[in-house]
């Protein structure tokens, strides 16, 4: 079952093509890593899948449908930037999100808040960077969504928070029922999670493959292969 199908996807901002002619598909149940430097089009791609941007050309299908209000029901998106209401308390934003999604799982929420040590009574603008990052993850993972789109979940966050986030991702993984796309330039820490990887450079796919297969055929870690392409 193809969770995501992308054909000849292109997105232009003014004269700049952030993403040009991407084609690939993702099967249900996979964890895909999209690796590339800043500006390679990772965020743009994720935003298109999340329904925040419209393609300039090409086709995007999520379970056979174009991104819309209906796909948003089953897609959980986590942005790279701070995008939560600063005046809300951590617990408040979780309650708020809960009311919009049928697949919200309160048990998961409690579990994650505990595990990630999130202080629900604090206002979001008062949280440290690390805790904001952990809150974003808790927000994204407290649902039984079909597709998770995580844009740089590890960036700009302290080491122990990163470890916790990776732990949470593995913990909450529901197998065949969920597909996850993680975009990152911190390949080293995240690579053990990836089943498949895509390398993106200037809006184009320069490598795609099964993670273990790449390790086998090239005798290198994904990080090493990444550095080869991008140094």
């Amino acid at each position, binding site marked *: 079952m193809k969770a995501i199908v992308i054909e000849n996807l292109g997105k232009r901002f003014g004269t700049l093509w952030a993403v040009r002619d991407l084609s690939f598909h993702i099967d249900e149940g996979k964890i895909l890593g999209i690796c590339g430097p800043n500006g390679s089009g990772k965020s743009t791609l994720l935003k298109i899948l999340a329904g925040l941007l419209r393609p300039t050309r090409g086709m995007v299908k999520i379970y056979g449908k174009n991104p819309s209000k209906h796909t948003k029901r089953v897609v959980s998106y986590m942005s790279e930037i701070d995008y939560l209401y600063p005046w809300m308390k951590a617990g408040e934003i979780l309650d708020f999100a809960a009311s*919009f999604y049928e697949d919200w799982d309160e048990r998961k929420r409690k579990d994650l808040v505990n595990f990630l040590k999130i202080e629900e009574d604090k206002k979001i603008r008062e949280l440290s960077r690390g805790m904001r990052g952990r809150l974003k993850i808790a927000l994204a993972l407290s649902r039984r969504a079909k597709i998770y789109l995580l844009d740089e979940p590890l960036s700009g966050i302290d080491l122990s928070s990163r470890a916790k986030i990776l732990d949470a991702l593995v913990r909450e993984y529901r197998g065949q029922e969920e597909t996850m796309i993680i975009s990152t330039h911190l390949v080293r820490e995240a690579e053990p999670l990836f089943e498949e990887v895509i390398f993106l450079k200037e809006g184009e796919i320069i490598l795609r493959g099964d993670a273990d297969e790449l390790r086998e055929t090239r005798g290198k870690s994904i990080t090493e292969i990444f550095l080869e392409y991008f140094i």
Partner: protein
Amino acid sequence: MKILKLYIKELKENYNWMMFSLLAVIAFDIFLLLRIPSMQKGSATVLSLLTFVVLLVLMFVKGYRIIKREWDWNTKEFLLTLPLNGFEIALAMTLELITEAMLYTLVATGLFLLILSRDLSGIKHNFALPLFLVIFSYFVFTGVYAVFIETFSLTLRKWRKTIGFMVFVILTYGLAKLTNLLKPVMEKLPSFKVTIDYMGQITFQHINMGSFILPLIYTVLLYICLSLLIDKKMEV
């Protein structure tokens, strides 16, 4: 219900501003009323008008801020990934504006009646309702108008302020012209008959229903355009 939740969130977000601006206006009016105990004829009307304009401007700023804040805080990325279409998002915002407009109108009507009671020795009850409706419709329209203009300029990639301002001017002018054109049609609608006792002189005024129905019609049209903008053109 989702729209309700979003509406409540908008209320919470704007609570402080709403209270503050209302208290400021009330304080301002009471201050003036006290400072100028013996009002000249007509100056009460000027004060009322001034209050009305101030509140109108505040409504406009309010509408503008609702949208601008989503952009400044980047919360638009959160809002637009919620499973809502443009009509639902616009409705939540409009309902919030309506709530605020209602409060503003209550305060304004109260203040006007208070101020005008200096000049008008006998206020007939039938004055309050049409006054309320007209003021309310203007406030709602202004708020939604501001939201629309700001949302529109944010869908532009370049020269947002310039084009936004131009559109504002052109559209306002257009709406004024349209209102003029529709005057004969509006006059066919029933009117409120208001009795005013002005310093002993009894006069009859007719306040046409069109003066609040038309702004409300414009508001609905703007709401539809706003919804379509969010659905089709909004990008983050």
